[in-house]
């Protein structure tokens, strides 16, 4: 099956600070992210031949991106795949480039959540009129049940389970403290994380990511043209995505103590990238830690840890900056918050910067030159979308 491996290069990326941007509109955020990417790539808006625009709540049509960036009469596709939107936009854009349809394209994702007037949005904006009888499935209440079933499945006492989750939060907050673009740049202690107010039992305040505004952008081009723009371009090595189908509800023997979409999607990406042992072969992974339990499940779902051994690896520091496989080196969703359409591109941004050796004080050692970016849209109870991009340095 032909994929994108070594056919598509990322030659520029941009990412705004993720924050409560009371003074910026989604248009401002788009301009900030795109122009950082344009300048990084050394291209101009008028060089862009096509664009992919990802958002869930902040504008429907392609013109939402065209208007602020003044992209003139080019094809722009809007991508919505919940929290996986940004990664899906990269995936779609990369296939268009790999197919030879375009030489140079823009991917941009942005979300302006802080204008909603609520701590967080919920529901499905694409399906506002329903029978409205099914429960309101706000994400944290679903991921709380992932934690509950994980602890139950492995027989983990609640205190012990909460401690594992707290260690993940402490790690990500440490990484975020080294990142000027993170919303939260403050270390937290294990005690703080474990004793934080409960949001949806057993998940507490520090188990959840913030609600944030932000935008991120990437310039993709044909790999054979990349050297015309820069020497340290980054190649796409593999794409993977798997969509669930409400299996935890329609199949009464399904055990949602992990996320099958992430298992399946990651295997596709590994196969395309030729990765057999991700724990050894990846230099870093930026994954979808919407909640700490999600990151714990991801360690196992993505094959970083054997099933049930995630907590041991957390305790051993496997995923810290200095560890065997640093995960969420930028602070993750935990410290960036989650402007939905932007997040996947922000994750790729960190992998891109790390592989270029430009991650400053949080720089990891680049050995294999391979890094993974992942987002998960949906919930472990309803099914969702696990989306992956594996990036690599040039040969």
């Amino acid at each position: 099956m032909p994929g994108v491996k070594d056919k598509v290069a990322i030659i520029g990326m941009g990412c705004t600070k993720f924050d409560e941007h009371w003074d910026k509109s989604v248009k401002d955020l788009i301009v900030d992210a795109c122009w950082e990417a344009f300048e990084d790539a050394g291209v101009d808006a008028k060089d862009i031949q096509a664009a992919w625009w990802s958002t869930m709540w902040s504008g429907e049509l392609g013109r939402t991106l065209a208007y602020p960036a003044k992209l003139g009469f080019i094809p722009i596709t809007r991508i919505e795949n919940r929290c996986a939107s940004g990664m899906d936009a990269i995936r779609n854009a990369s296939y268009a480039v790999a197919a030879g349809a375009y030489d140079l394209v823009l991917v941009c994702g942005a979300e302006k959540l802080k204008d909603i007037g609520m701590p967080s949005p919920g529901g499905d904006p694409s399906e506002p009129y329903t029978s409205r009888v099914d429960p309101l499935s706000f994400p944290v209440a679903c991921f709380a049940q992932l934690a509950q079933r994980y602890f139950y499945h492995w027989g983990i006492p609640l205190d012990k389970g909460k401690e594992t989750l707290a260690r993940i939060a402490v790690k990500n907050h440490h990484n975020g403290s080294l990142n000027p673009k993170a919303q939260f740049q403050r270390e937290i202690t294990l005690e703080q994380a474990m004793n934080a107010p409960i949001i949806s039992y057993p998940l507490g305040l520090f188990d959840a990511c913030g609600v944030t505004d932000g935008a991120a952008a990437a310039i993709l081009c044909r790999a054979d043209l990349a050297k015309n723009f820069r020497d340290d371009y980054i190649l796409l090595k593999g794409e993977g995505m798997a969509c669930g189908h409400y299996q935890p509800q329609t199949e009464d023997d399904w055990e949602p103590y992990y996320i099958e979409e992430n298992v399946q999607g990651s295997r596709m990406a590994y196969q395309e990238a030729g990765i057999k042992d991700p724990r050894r072969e990846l230099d870093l992974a930026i994954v979808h830690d919407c909640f700490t339990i999600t990151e714990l499940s991801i360690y196992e779902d993505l094959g970083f840890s054997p099933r049930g051994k995630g907590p041991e690896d957390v305790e051993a520091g496997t995923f810290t900056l200095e560890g065997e496989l640093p995960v969420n080196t930028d602070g993750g969703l935990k410290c960036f918050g989650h402007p939905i359409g932007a997040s996947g591109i922000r994750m790729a941004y960190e992998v891109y910067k790390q592989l270029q050796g430009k991650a400053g004080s949080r720089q990891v050692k680049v050995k294999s030159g391979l890094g993974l970016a992942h987002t998960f849209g949906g919930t472990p109870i309803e099914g969702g979308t696990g989306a992956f991009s594996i990036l690599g340095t040039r040969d």
Partner: protein
Amino acid sequence: MIGILAYGAYVPKWRMSRGLLRGGLKGEKAIAGPDEDSVTMAVAAALDCLNGVDRGSIDGLFFASTTAPYKEKQIATIIAATADLRRDILTVDFTNSLRAGTTAVKVAADVVKAGSAKKVIVVAADTRLGSPESDAEVDFGDGAAAVLVGDDGVSVELEASYSISNELIDVWRTEEDKFVRIWEERFAQTQGYLKVVPEAVRGVLEKSGRSPGDFSKLVVYAPNPRRGSELCRKIGFDPNNQLQDSLYGLVGNTGTAYPLMLLVEALEGAQAGDRLLLASYGNGSDASALLVTEGIEKIKRNRRGIGAHIGSKRLIPDYNTYLKWRKLMPRGMVIDKLYFWTYPSAPPILRERNRIYPLHGTKCKICGTVQYPPQRVCAKCHTKDDFEEIRLSDKKVTLYSFSREPATGQLIGLVNFDGGGRMWCNIGDTNYEELKIGMPMEMSFREVFYDLGIHDYFWKAVPVRV
């Protein structure tokens, strides 16, 4: 022989100590939970009554209440659909009077007598509001009762009935009123209740050729226990031995449902051969002479009725909780509406009616997997359009996972049905701390949302009541 074939009742789990209403008051009253109303309570009572009864054998459903949530739209159809009754049945709402329940029973008996139906279920429910700090607020309670009327396998024979129609402005409520109005108590009782009920009782005694001494119990609506005793003495019954307990200290005056709830309570303690005199009140009075037959022992089994429901209760902590639940407290932002940008829509409710009201799931004819919500393509074996619908609402369920929704405070979880199938649903009548993976639960029909004038009813999992 025409009479009652089966009975059922429902008392909400939630109770309010009357001490919360007025210092020094003793006893409790039953109050509908935040997701309960006359429709949901009527469904619960109807299903209790229909336990062990072939749903397909029911030819009519009569609903009686003064607190129907719709002014224009039938309630009986909601209950009939939820109880999975046939479509070619007679559904009627009896309303606007507290004796609508007993009137519905009388009409049901006449319909059966006329031969146009074999079995008619009558369900009465009320959630009346007394204005804050009024005597009515102290007296009123919420509840529901159901009786199945027919002519085959009668457990309680309807020997005679007699009705009085009486125009009087004593207890009433206009379209604009949220709270029940009552004219001066002495006027209402002396010119209404204490005058009219005796008239009906005398009528039925005469018609049946019986005297008060022939009856083991007088089962009579009473605005409060004091007036009930007064009435009992006045018509020649002994308040100490013959007056059926009023449930006042446990449930309260449940309006339209009250006489039928008292009847269920009386039948729970009745023996074959007992005679009961049932009388209601509300712009007149319906009185009936009833004879309990041998069949009573059979229907006492497998019914929660009044007794089992009374024992299963939780007290609300304070008066504010009651005010919030009855929407008597001003609210700022209605967070569950703003949070989730979805609204009830009539066409999807129509399309999904089988999975909403009687909670039908699908069972794959090829691999046997039960699935909810109903699927067209089997999640297990991928067979297309080869399912049978099965009713899940009366299955026992086991709690698989659960959590508390932080924005709305609602409990939400996965439950597994006995016999297969799983459902993602809200959880009611409990709090997070009491839930445990693997605990047995049951499904209960509740109002899950209200918007655009649509009361959205659906099933929740609740802890087993008994």
